[in-house]
């Protein structure tokens, strides 16, 4: 049961859930949740293939990816705070001035 294909399948299911969330939801915070789920699926893939190849590089890449994802969440939430101040709303279809 704990073979490579099982872990990659779980990662695939998580990516599918994240894509569904990005398409359907218009709440900015929920879109950040979906992005986080996709990033976690990518990390799971990195670790699974690191174990499959018997190489440490996948784990180092996963550590870097986790740190970058934390920075991305901080900036994304700050942008949500700014947009909430301007529009009084966190519905991304209301953010009209971003359309250019």
């Amino acid at each position, binding site marked *: 049961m704990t073979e490579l294909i099982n872990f990659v399948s779980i990662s695939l299911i998580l990516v599918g859930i994240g894509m569904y969330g990005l398409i359907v*939801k218009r709440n900015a915070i*929920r879109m950040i949740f979906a992005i986080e789920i996709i990033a976690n699926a990518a990390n799971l893939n990195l670790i699974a293939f690191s174990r499959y190849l018997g190489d440490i590089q996948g784990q180092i890449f996963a550590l870097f990816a986790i740190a970058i994802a934390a920075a991305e969440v901080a900036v994304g939430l700050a942008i949500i705070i700014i947009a909430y101040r301007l529009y009084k709303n966190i519905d991304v279809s209301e953010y009209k001035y971003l359309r250019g």
Partner: protein
Amino acid sequence: MKEELLMADVAFIGLSILTVGSAIFALESREIIYGAIALAISMLGIAGFFILLDSPFVAMFQISVYVGAVAVLVIFIVMLVRTESLFSGDEDNRGRQIAGLIFSLLAMAGIGVLLFSSLFSNAELKPSLENIVNKIGNGMLTYYSPVFILLGLTLAGSIIGALSLARREESDQPRSETSPASPQQEKIYLDKKSEGKGAGISND
């Protein structure tokens, strides 16, 4: 040996149910604060998968960064924004929901067919590595040291950027008071002004 294998299977099935279920709940829960907590539980499940894959150092990092920092940050933002009264959009847009479901199922089916027909479908995992923390430390300080330094700079820059974005500017209030350039800017400015005068929301 047999019992050990069985325990790993049980742990895998339980972790996958926990992770996938709480990921779905994070997106579909009615109250967004419960969604944030479910997201933290899902990340904890991913850390469990890392432990099953014999990489405890990355699992520890995942718990301390995601469950410890990111989830708490998200919960604070949810509390600050008070979404349940301010989210005006129709989240239950039927057409978009069906379209998203069809799209993600198609993508999963396509990648899944590719994956199960590839060589990875019956690949065996290698025996687990020894001295993982030692090797990660060596790699980070020798071959990956430029990446390590750049990562530190990126983290510092993004934190400073987030702080300066979220900070309310008091000094540019007189500058924008002189003459708004376009009607759109004027509207934003008026919104800002009325928000500043609102009784319920304090300025800083």
